[in-house]
């Protein structure tokens, strides 16, 4: 029994490490789009993977794990868990940037502030990550039509900004 449990733990640890290697960036992008805050995105991505670590013994690793991570990250970013983190904290986003990169991020961030979280996330998941509106709608708890409309609105808004 001991060997079986040890083997299972070892396997799930390896699968967890593989999931981290494969999905860290998509999860980070998703949270960054949702929050438009670099520091928060790093923290929430870390937290989402920590929750996967806790659940690694029970997750069905035969199925894609990315949806689990995205839904968990969204939950962490929304009100219930956000409320626990809502004490005002200065963003740590500039700490990981060099000077030119920071300036570029501030420009991009300012431009994307004109979009809602839904609009940003819909663009990132559909255009960059290749997910269908139906898939994105499930993750964001809305309808495919709302996702399509959000992508359209996002592009119009950015076009008007030019």
């Amino acid at each position, binding site marked *: 029994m001991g060997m079986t449990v040890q083997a299972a733990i070892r396997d799930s640890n390896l699968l967890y490490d593989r999931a981290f290697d494969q999905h860290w960036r998509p999860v980070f992008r998703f949270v960054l789009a949702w929050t438009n805050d670099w520091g928060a995105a790093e923290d929430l991505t870390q937290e989402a993977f920590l929750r996967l670590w806790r659940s690694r013994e029970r997750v069905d690793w035969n199925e894609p794990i990315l949806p689990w991570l995205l839904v968990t990250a969204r939950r962490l970013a929304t*009100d219930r868990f956000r409320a626990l983190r809502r004490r005002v904290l200065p963003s740590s986003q500039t700490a990981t940037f060099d000077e030119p990169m920071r300036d570029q991020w501030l420009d991009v961030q300012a431009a994307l502030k004109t979009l809602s979280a839904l609009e940003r996330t819909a663009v990132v998941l559909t255009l960059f990550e290749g997910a269908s509106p139906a898939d994105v709608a499930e993750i964001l708890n*809305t309808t495919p039509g709302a996702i399509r409309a959000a992508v359209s609105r996002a592009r119009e808004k950015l076009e008007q900004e030019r």
Partner: protein
Amino acid sequence: MTPPTKPARDDRVWTDWLALTERARQPRHAPRPASTRGNLPVGMAALAAVVVIVAVVGSRFASTPTGSGGSGGSPSSAPSSLAAPSGSGAQPIATAPLPPATYTTPGVASNWTGFTWSTSPSEIPIQVGGAVRILPWRGGYVAYGTANGSLGQSVWVSADGLTWKLVPELSATQVLVAESPAGLVAMTVTQSNTVPPTISPETVWTSTDGTVWHNNGTPVGLANVTSIAGTPSGLVAIQGTDVSSGSMSVTYSVAYSTDGLRWSTVRVDPSLNWTFDRNTPETSMVPVVQAGNGHLFLMFGDKGFGLSTHSVVWWSVDGRAWARSTGTISQFGSSMDFGRDGILLYTGIATAGTNTYGFVVSTDGGMSWQPDDSFGPLGLNTCGQVACVEFPNGAVAANGTYFVAVRADGQAWTSYDAKTWTSIPWNGTIPKPFTLAVLPRGVMSLDQYGAAK
């Protein structure tokens, strides 16, 4: 999902965004809780994990409710092509090792003249930055929140602020604690490991002494709680309700109770829009209740709520009758710290690039407020970068009696009211803004504990 591709329209903003995220620094190692990380040999690590699992199965708190929850905003099913594991029923999440059952925070409780520092607070399950809140109660204390090395949250009680004891049955994904007319009330929720994850309904725990706790099941008239607070006269909570199924909007309300079990809605100001838009989390903040100095406070505001002044604070003694505070609060009030003779309200909008933070002070129990543009003795951050011009040049925190402020140059002060500050030697690690914790007998600054002397 397919690999990232260029957006259909070659928009400079998105191109830059994508390039920046390509340069984002992925941590070299997958994150693990500190308590399970390290350099153990594989066999030892596996053995440790087995011990953890056995311990969890055998403990009371692991058998938390596994109901479907119905928490606001939870997806009802998994995406099709982003296929989720099927047939995985709701189960309690695997639980990280319990924080230490007891720990001590030495020092004196009054007449602080300096600090004696130690660099090994690992046994102290307090994280700086507000992750653990300390509730003064009947001469003792209750600490609750996220412990170092733990993913869930826990509760510790202390009669003297020196020795702290874990309440194991209250460990959960989220735990909130408040004073009540009968003693203390705690609410726990647990997130499942299913796809999509669900959050259990709140479980109400009550205690008359802080040591023995009773499970009272699900509260009546209350769900999706984001904060609770109480006084010996009554309890209040903020709860959120989805406007409709699948909606991105949630409506918040204030609920009142005397026992924590049965709740009724209190209409504080129906003229305001209490609906929060999840589409704009960066500009709309959740209302929050907090208790201190014998009063309850409700912080509410920002443009998402249709307020021109951005922020409102109400105060109440019993949670039923509320009065609007006077004074100028130009940004959203996010949290308060309490001293013996004053209250410090932290305000700001946490939108990077336009961060503006402020201190607002009350010395009359929260009935009126005055902005403190100089951030007490700290002054403005002088780093000169866009993102920090409005930050205080240091850190401040409080324990219900003392405020402690530490400036970036290492100068420190204490205060009872957040208006009159007295210099105190620091000689410890200099905290960053809002990364200082003041305990009953000392301070936490990053990885150091300073016992008050």
